[in-house]
């Protein structure tokens, strides 16, 4: 299974079609966060909060298909998002975005590590570091060492197990319990969930759209998949992935409804424990565990692989040229061990709430949305002020964050980068006009 060239390590031996493309994207985007955050958003913002969460992701993936098509038309050959950014940006802008990409990717890995930690606590009585060690070791081996070939080999099995769980478990429960008792239970214990027009639902949805768009549009793995899917199938693959992805958060939300309709809960982790008590049939319990492990490992593996590919291809290569393919692959393996180890340590010593963690990085994704759109949809090399606008917006939003709500800081971040972009574009236009007028006799 060892890759012969670095390109094969990053992109696999052949261009992939629609079916495998969708499987690969689902493996990346059905994450530990999807399992835990979509029910959490349902608990916080009502039934429509859960549906909104699913819709946000689906719309973002769907919209990425337009970006993907444009990118492949302008830049048909490439390995990573770094290759594209190098072609479209000046060195300063390029390095700014590369640093942001590395930080956000590490953050995603950390979130998956947190989800794995929750799962380990839920499943095993052993100390946390034992379970986590096996999780990280497995991910490093199959994704970091195996390359894309092995990732796709596992992805098929992972997606099948996820599908089996989201189809069978809710079906089993609702057939067994019936809908009326569930509705009555929710009305009794959690009536707030049935409130349609919650005052902060729209704030959540709007902020979620900004974060979702930014996250999907600026994701290393999605860009890497974009370059490996057959060109004519790019748009349809991403659109259909969005459409199919929507079912996972919806199904996970329905699972959690099943748990909470019989009583209250303290936090999302207690819901997980409640689920374990509910799923008394061993088959369904194994299926659920398999689904959760698949979701977390597939995302962690895909992100780890994309991150090491980016570092080797776009960060180390300009510094150390004339490296052979085998040396690059060895470097990628070594890097996956280092990054895996780093995230393992971080996961062991830090445990914030998952949705908070997602929105904590929301400022970054929201600030990146406008610049990435400008980079993709403009012609030729773009000016440095575009990536700088994202940095300024991120810094400004974190400065004001203690004084405003989470959502407000996300809106502010997106709006700030957009405003800076508009002002800079107008100033550049005026400057160019002035220069032309001055040169005229």
């Amino acid at each position, binding site marked *: 299974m060892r890759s012969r060239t670095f390109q094969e390590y990053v992109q696999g031996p052949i261009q992939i079609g629609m079916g495998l493309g969708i499987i690969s994207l689902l493996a990346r985007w059905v994450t530990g966060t999807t399992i835990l955050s979509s029910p959490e958003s349902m608990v916080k913002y009502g039934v429509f909060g859960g549906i909104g969460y699913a819709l946000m992701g689906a719309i973002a993936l769907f919209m990425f298909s337009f970006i993907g098509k444009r990118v492949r038309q302008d830049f048909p050959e490439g390995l990573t998002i770094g290759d594209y950014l190098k072609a479209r940006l000046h060195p300063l802008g390029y390095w700014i975005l590369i640093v942001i990409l590395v930080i956000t990717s590490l953050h995603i890995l950390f979130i998956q590590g947190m989800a794995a930690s929750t799962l380990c606590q839920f499943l095993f009585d052993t100390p946390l570091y034992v379970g986590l060690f096996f999780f990280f070791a497995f991910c490093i081996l199959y994704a970091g060492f195996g390359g894309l070939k092995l990732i796709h080999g596992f992805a098929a099995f992972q997606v099948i197990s996820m599908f089996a769980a989201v*189809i069978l478990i809710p*079906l089993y429960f609702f057939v067994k319990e019936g809908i009326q008792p569930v509705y009555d239970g929710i009305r009794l214990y959690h009536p707030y969930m049935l409130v349609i027009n919650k005052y902060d639902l729209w704030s959540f949805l709007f902020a979620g759209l900004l974060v979702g768009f930014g996250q999907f549009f600026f994701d290393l793995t999605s860009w890497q998949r974009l370059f490996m899917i057959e060109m004519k199938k790019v748009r349809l693959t991403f659109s259909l992935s969005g459409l199919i992805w929507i079912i996972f958060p919806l199904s996970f939300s329905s699972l959690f409804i099943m748990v909470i309709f019989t009583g209250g809960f303290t936090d999302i982790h207690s819901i997980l424990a409640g689920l374990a008590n509910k799923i008394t049939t061993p088959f369904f319990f194994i299926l659920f565990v398999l689904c959760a492990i698949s979701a977390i490992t597939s995302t962690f593996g895909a992100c780890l692989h994309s991150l090491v590919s980016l570092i080797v291809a776009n960060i180390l290569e300009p510094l150390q040229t004339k490296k052979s393919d085998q040396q690059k692959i060895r470097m990628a393996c070594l890097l996956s061990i280092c990054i895996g180890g780093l995230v393992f340590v971080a996961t062991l010593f830090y445990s914030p709430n998952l949705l908070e963690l997602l929105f904590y990085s929301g400022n970054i994704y929201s600030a990146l949305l406008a610049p990435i759109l400008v980079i993709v949809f403009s012609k030729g090399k773009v000016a440095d002020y575009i990536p700088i606008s994202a940095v300024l917006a991120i810094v400004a939003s974190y400065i004001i964050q203690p004084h405003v709500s989470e959502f407000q800081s996300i809106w502010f971040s997106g709006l700030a980068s957009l405003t800076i972009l508009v002002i800079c574009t107008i100033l550049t236009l005026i400057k160019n006009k002035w220069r032309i007028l001055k040169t005229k006799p």
Partner: protein
Amino acid sequence: MLSYEGFTLIIMLFILAPIMGAIALLFLFIFEKRIDLLENKNKEIRLEQALQEAQYNKLNQQIQPHFLFNTLNVILGLARLNRTAELIRALEAFSQFLKFKYKASEPLIPLSQEIQYTQHYLDIQTLRFGDRLKIDMECPEPLSTALVPPFILQTLVENSFKHGLEKKVGEALLHIRFYLESQMVYLEVADNGLMGNESSVTDDGGHGLDNIQKRLYLYFNDRAQLHIASNESGTKVEVSWPLVFDRKMEEAEE
């Protein structure tokens, strides 16, 4: 507040959506390869058609200089014999012949056009043979709009003169007949000339009947036929091809 009915609908959506998603993905996996295969096959067929069209046009273009060469030889013969009056008329007919042009890109032309074109050649031959040449042409009116590969009649007529009637002493008879049978157009070109020792259906330049056969095959495959029968009383060539009409012309007529 969400009603029970609304809640039921949402739960149904939650349960049915994954099933539909799985079916969609399964469908994609099963049929993607087949759809790709069909697309490639379609592309292959289109390429093959383009190649055949190119070959067909090439053959069409090959035959025209061949025909011109023979006609010029006829005119040269008249000049050598000092038959000035016939020569002038022949040149007039020849200029008419040159004025008439086929559309090079058209793979099929109306039969009336083909007959008109051949008529100019026959005019020149009539001048040479004088009263000795008797031409009898039959073409039912409805067939005049039927489509035919260009230069078919012309090549057959030209062959009749070249291989049969040229050497004929006495009355030279040329019988041309078009008729329709079971949605097939039949063309018979019979002469009372002598083939002599020539056994090949192809002429000196490698074109002629061979060219007709190739073009008919490219356009109609096995549905088109060419038969040649030669005996002491003359030669008879029979060509048949499927009846095809020009839709645009039909619409205009309607």
